[in-house]
């Protein structure tokens, strides 16, 4: 598309990048067809092409964002389905990230919105605080009906019934490889996931060690920055990312690392983009090095190959493709191939490319659209009659789990089980 940025505007690296992206878009409309919000709402403005147009108009005219533009951009899940679909390779992720930052800097949200966002940004990335909040939410649930805001009700609903005790495995330490060491890897233990479900990291560590990996939990790591990044709070997200980059750089330059293993695909998409986030700054080289080492757990396991995967019951597994994995990182077949190699029957639901509506904090900020997407996702998954549902992202697991009686586990828990680990917690009571 034609763009009308001035040379002065293009001097800003972010604007130059957005201009480059907009120039690639030919407005063909293919992306509309695979956009979850367009499918639900049926309005060009809630499609990638419409949002690209809104962003272009806002940035070109350097105008104060209006309520409507903000509404349509807020409704974007950042599922990146459009990027898989786009034939001309429009990098929508960098464009919408720029728009979110621009909105955060130039738009004054209504007070309840600001408070909600502030609270989320102050709680979710910190496992200790988030755990306390979950306990509070659990206590508050009986009073749910008294709460006027749908978003606050959604937050209460998110709290799981059983809130696990913190896992000692998540503290900084080194786990020795079992047998000869094949790799030395770091594990991103994450933030919200640590408060919601400690089984995932435990299973990941067991699985990696069993396959000859020395697993390092580096000191000084925390949230990857994705949660605040998607709110446009660049200062906070970059601070999180920078802390991780420094911690990992120390490991890389010290005992060395073969990979940074990530088992929450939402984080993986962001960490793999660290190079872009810090482009032109002093951390650029280190950020690029970390980004290049970042691997989803399934990528690492495909590389290692499963050994002796004979221990699990060969269940029918409904595989839910997390958007951050399939669209954000382009990892589609690997998790399914691993599950099949582990003896499971892998079932794929119809419209597997469509988001479940979790999308980071989206289920909290946009409960109505999120609930509709959840209902659709659960229906297509249940139509495959699975005995268990597996996914590679904690957000999707919580979202889908809250809508179905079928147990939901992380892919890594099934792989751990199949190679000699314990039966996943969620399957203890199942047949």
């Amino acid at each position, binding site marked *: *598309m*034609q*763009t009308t940025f001035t040379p002065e505007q293009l001097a800003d690296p972010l604007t130059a990048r957005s201009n480059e992206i907009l*120039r*690639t*878009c*030919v*407005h*063909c*409309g*293919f*992306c*509309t*067809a*695979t956009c979850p919000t*367009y499918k639900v709402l*049926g*309005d*060009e*403005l809630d499609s990638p*092409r*419409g949002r690209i*147009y*809104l962003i272009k*108009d806002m940035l070109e005219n350097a105008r104060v964002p*209006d309520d*409507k*533009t903000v509404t*349509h951009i807020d409704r974007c899940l950042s599922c990146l389905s459009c990027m898989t*679909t*786009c*034939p*001309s*390779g*429009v990098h929508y992720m960098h464009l919408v990230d720029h728009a979110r930052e621009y909105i955060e800097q130039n738009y004054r949200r209504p007070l309840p919105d600001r408070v909600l966002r502030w609270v989320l940004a102050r709680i979710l990335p910190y496992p200790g605080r988030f755990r306390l909040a979950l306990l509070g939410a659990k206590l508050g649930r009986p009073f749910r009906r008294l709460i006027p805001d749908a978003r606050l009700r959604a937050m209460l609903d998110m709290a799981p019934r059983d809130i696990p005790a913190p896992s000692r495995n998540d503290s900084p330490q080194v786990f020795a490889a079992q047998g000869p060491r094949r790799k030395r890897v770091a594990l991103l233990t994450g933030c919200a996931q640590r408060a919601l479900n400690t089984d995932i990291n435990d299973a990941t560590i067991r699985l990696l060690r069993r396959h000859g990996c020395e697993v390092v939990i580096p000191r000084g790591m925390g949230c990857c920055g994705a949660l605040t990044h998607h709110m446009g709070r660049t200062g906070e997200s970059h601070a999180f990312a920078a802390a991780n980059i420094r911690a990992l750089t120390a490991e890389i330059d010290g005992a060395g690392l073969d990979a940074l293993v990530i088992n929450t695909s939402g984080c993986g998409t962001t960490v793999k983009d660290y190079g872009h986030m810090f482009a032109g700054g002093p951390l650029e080289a280190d950020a690029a090095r970390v980004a290049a080492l970042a691997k989803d757990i399934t990528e690492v396991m495909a590389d290692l190959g499963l050994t002796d995967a004979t221990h699990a019951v060969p269940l029918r597994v409904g595989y839910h493709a997390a958007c951050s994995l399939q669209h954000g990182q382009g990892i589609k077949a690997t998790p399914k191939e691993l599950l099949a190699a582990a003896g499971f029957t892998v079932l794929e639901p119809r419209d597997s490319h469509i988001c479940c509506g979790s999308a980071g904090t989206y289920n909290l900020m946009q409960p109505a659209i999120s609930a509709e997407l959840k209902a659709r996702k659960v229906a297509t998954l249940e139509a495959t009659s699975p005995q268990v549902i597996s996914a590679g992202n904690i957000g999707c697991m919580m979202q889908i789990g809250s809508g179905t009686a079928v147990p939901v586990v992380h892919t890594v828990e099934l792989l751990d089980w199949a190679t000699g680990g314990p039966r996943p917690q969620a399957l203890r009571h199942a047949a």
Partner: protein
Amino acid sequence: MTIAMPAPDAQVIAQRPQIVAALRAVLPADAVIDDPHETRAYECDALTAYRCPPLAVVLPRTTAEVAAAMRVSHGLGVPVVPRGAGTSLAGGALPTADCVILGTMRLNAFLDIDLANRYVRVQSGVTNLSVSAELEPLGFFYAPDPSSQLACTIAGNIAMNSGGAHCLKYGVTTNNLLGATVVLTTGEIIELGGPEPGPAGLDLLGVLCGSEGQLGVVTEATLRILPRPEGARPVLIGFDSPEVAGECVANIIRSGVLPVAIEYMDEPCLRAVESFAKAGYPDCPAVLIVEVEGSKAEIDDQIARIRAIADALNPVEFRESRNADESLAIWKGRKSAFGAMGRLGDYICLDGTVPVGQLPHTLRRIGELSRQHGLEVANVFHAGDGNMHPLILFDANTPGDLARAEAFGADILRLCVEVGGCLTGEHGVGVEKRDLMGDQYDPDDLAIQMQVKDVFDPGWLLNPAKVFPLEASAAHRAHTAPLAAAE
């Protein structure tokens, strides 16, 4: 911008608040959009060189809501521009400043699937591909498959009488459309055709299909469905020159073999699609995708005959698809060709049709014109039925470049007419080819077409300033409008 649009009706613009209020009174709250920041996203379709934000946008969910919106617009004398998914490459859904855009994308329900009588009835805003996807588990499909089938709607397909790769064997939309519910400009709802084949009387459905939103808005459609073939296999044939590839197409058609599709892509296009689809296309100046279908024996036999024809022309490569994944990648690349060309730069996409025997000559002349105009051109098209899609590359951010590209495009389309073809195969005339209609039709032909428009839309409120050259329609209206008003 070299294609002129008429000045908007100042009276309509002045009435804007009343128009929006009247639409709001008959439609749900979320179905009327008038915020200027929001209407801007509707200012163009896939032909982005021409843009104009509409006065308002309406997004109805039912035939009754479409009719209500049409009644309001008609009553207040407001032009209506129907819009499917906005994938038109000819500016078929380009708004005017005084118009209401009527989007059909929320009309997306499947109403009836009747396998015994082999039809499906849908609301018109369903996407083309979703029809076949819905039918796939049942073993059926809907044949017309425009390259934008992932996104484009049945409503838009009917408006443009869309074709697609597989139309060589199965025909275009008009050959697969059985019936339609149509809302006329007055808001009156009529039924044309139906599930039973060959209704008596005038073929008004045939008039409607391909009328580019000039006559009415289709809200529901009954579509012919077909059983899926036992199998299908594409082959890739690479050639050293476009002309020889063109000759191969003509020879295949002449031999009596009927492949389901013969597609052509040249080197610049192959470069763009390979980086998206990774189908392993041959690296040479021109490639044909020829697909045959049927039982394995039928496929083998047809491919052997095609191979013999191709071998006589010394192809660089002749490769059969080995499995379903490979076939999928081959078609994914072809179907995404227009979008993928965005990797190379801005372009305008043409849509002329020539007799198949004229393909080698036409390709040669396009090459000459390209050098003459100093602009690169990529060719990708449905070769089997001579439906060409030259893509002219230019730089939208360089002033004057678009005009040069358009002049080149006009020369190519005139060339198509000159060799016995026509201006459009499947994208429609829209605004893009409007001013070239005089090269194809003489004034009497155009007058008769405009008289048909008079019957359906006496006030000329539907999809204004498209299809008919402005001077021709203005002269016609100067003559007929007073008569219509007097009645």
